[in-house]
């Protein structure tokens, strides 16, 4: 090697680490650190926070209070329907877009490849995105619950807790769908594919407006419909169908799309 004068501040300290094991405390820290920085980066992205944190409550206040508030004050069933529609709408976005679009970009721009080369603990990046989605959904649910009394809805503490738990757990099938799209689509194509799924799922699930009885079979294919019904049942309000069936459909969608995405990621990277 050619001789190059060493800078004075290059004291010893770059010696390689010798340990071959990772203490479990540090292992857990790696998962938490990944989740913290994934959440932080998304919170700092106005393109993500503005639509997914503010839009559900803003639309609820527009339709549930400003435009139809007087009518809904007289009809508690309709008021709950509108509230639940925008709550489920708020659950869908972070998982679908947080996984679908960002994963596709990270795959295409080499970040996923770098993380596979680095000693990132198994599935830490995907768990971090899942926790980020859950954090966003928690914030959406809190803002929706804060807005509920303005829409003439008064929930018990138990109902509020049920909504929060159902919302946070209910984002999992949407995370899985997003993960599947993000594992297969290009960075340019992912937003289009996510919207192709997101918009019909909102409008054809009957969560924002009831569909004609002849089209009711369509809603059965939408996780959004099953989440809305499961949440209504958990809040001890009127719901359609058996809650166990709704939960089973949501769990199956989560498992199937996660398995497909993981297989795809293992094949293609």
């Amino acid at each position, binding site marked *: 090697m050619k001789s190059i004068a060493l800078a004075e*501040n290059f004291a*010893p300290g770059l010696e390689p680490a010798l340990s*071959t094991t990772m203490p479990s405390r540090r292992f857990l820290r790696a998962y938490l650190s990944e989740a913290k*920085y994934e959440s*932080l980066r998304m919170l700092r992205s106005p393109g993500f926070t503005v639509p997914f944190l503010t839009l559900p409550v803003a639309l609820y206040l527009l339709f549930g209070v400003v435009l139809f508030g007087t009518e809904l004050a007289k009809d508690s069933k309709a008021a709950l329907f509108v509230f639940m529609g925008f709550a489920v709408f708020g659950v869908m976005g972070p998982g679908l877009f947080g996984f679908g679009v960002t994963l596709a970009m990270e795959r295409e721009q080499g970040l996923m490849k770098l993380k596979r080369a680095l*000693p990132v*603990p198994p599935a830490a990046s995907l768990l971090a995105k899942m926790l980020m989605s859950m954090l966003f959904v928690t914030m959406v649910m809190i803002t929706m619950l804060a807005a509920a009394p303005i829409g003439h809805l008064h929930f018990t503490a138990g109902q509020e807790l049920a909504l929060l738990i159902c919302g946070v757990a209910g984002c999992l099938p949407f995370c899985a769908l997003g993960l599947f799209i993000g594992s297969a689509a290009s960075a340019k194509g992912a937003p289009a594919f996510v919207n192709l799924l997101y918009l019909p799922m909102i409008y054809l699930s009957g969560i924002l407006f009831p569909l004609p009885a002849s089209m009711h079979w369509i809603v059965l294919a939408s996780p959004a419909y099953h989440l809305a019904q499961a949440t209504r049942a958990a809040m001890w309000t009127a719901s359609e169908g058996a809650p166990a069936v709704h939960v089973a459909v949501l769990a199956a969608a989560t498992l199937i799309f996660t398995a497909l995405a993981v297989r795809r990621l293992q094949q293609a990277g």
Partner: protein
Amino acid sequence: MSTHCVAELQEARKCFGKLTALDGLSIQVQAGELFALLGPNGAGKTTAISLFLGLARPDSGCARLFGKPPESIEARRHIGVMMQEAALAPELRVREQIEMVAAYYSEPLSAEAVMDRTGTTALAPRPYGKLSAGQKRQVQFAMTLVGRPRLLFLDEPTVGLDVRARELVWNTLQDLIVGGCSVILTTHYLEEAEALADRVAVIAQGHLIAQGSVDDLRSLVVRKRITCRTHLSPEQVSCWPDVQSASLDRDGLHITTTNAESVVRRLLSADDDLHDLELQRAGLGEAFNELVQGVNA
């Protein structure tokens, strides 16, 4: 496998459809050496690095990191990786990027220590997306070091760096080597490989075509270059035995020869006023070009 071997490809073969990217490539990287992997575009360098890192599996043959499969997280806890194409999250600050990577390792350096060593302390609070291309490379280099790796994979580490930053990277690499770390470097800057590498491997079309020290590779090229100021014309000199070419420019007469000693003797006897005589061996660049042309021919 040698006890000092930190990374190894053994008869590794990898095909993508009908394209054979690597065809029985065998490479061993020893502890405490800087190993430069060179080759023209499409030679198979990226595939070789992918096998080393466990990003792809060889169709036949094997890849080992510290004697283990590269997919093993225990093996990967001893490596640092700098990829040219990886786009990091632009929203995270420099300190956060480094802390996030540090969390993957069992005995990392502190973010402060690694920023101090890589001259990136002033960048710590800045969002990564707001940095220049050169600053991003400096931060990526800091992230590579934070886990105190025993083996570094560096892909074009100094692209976009100014002279001072490049010197800092080179100095740090030398410190790392002295400390027992190994480096696998892929670069298109042959002068970088020439300055830093203990051993060089040249691959082309998926085959290893030469391997050895920089001097070993230079010696594969027998040509030498003579420069001098003389009244002799290029036309006169070019017809001498062993002279391959001769040309004149404002720096003097340039002669390429396979027998420098004989040509210098004849020059000195033909021109008593000859001065500013210089003799140069072939550089790594010339050796590289000759080796690669030999394969493509």
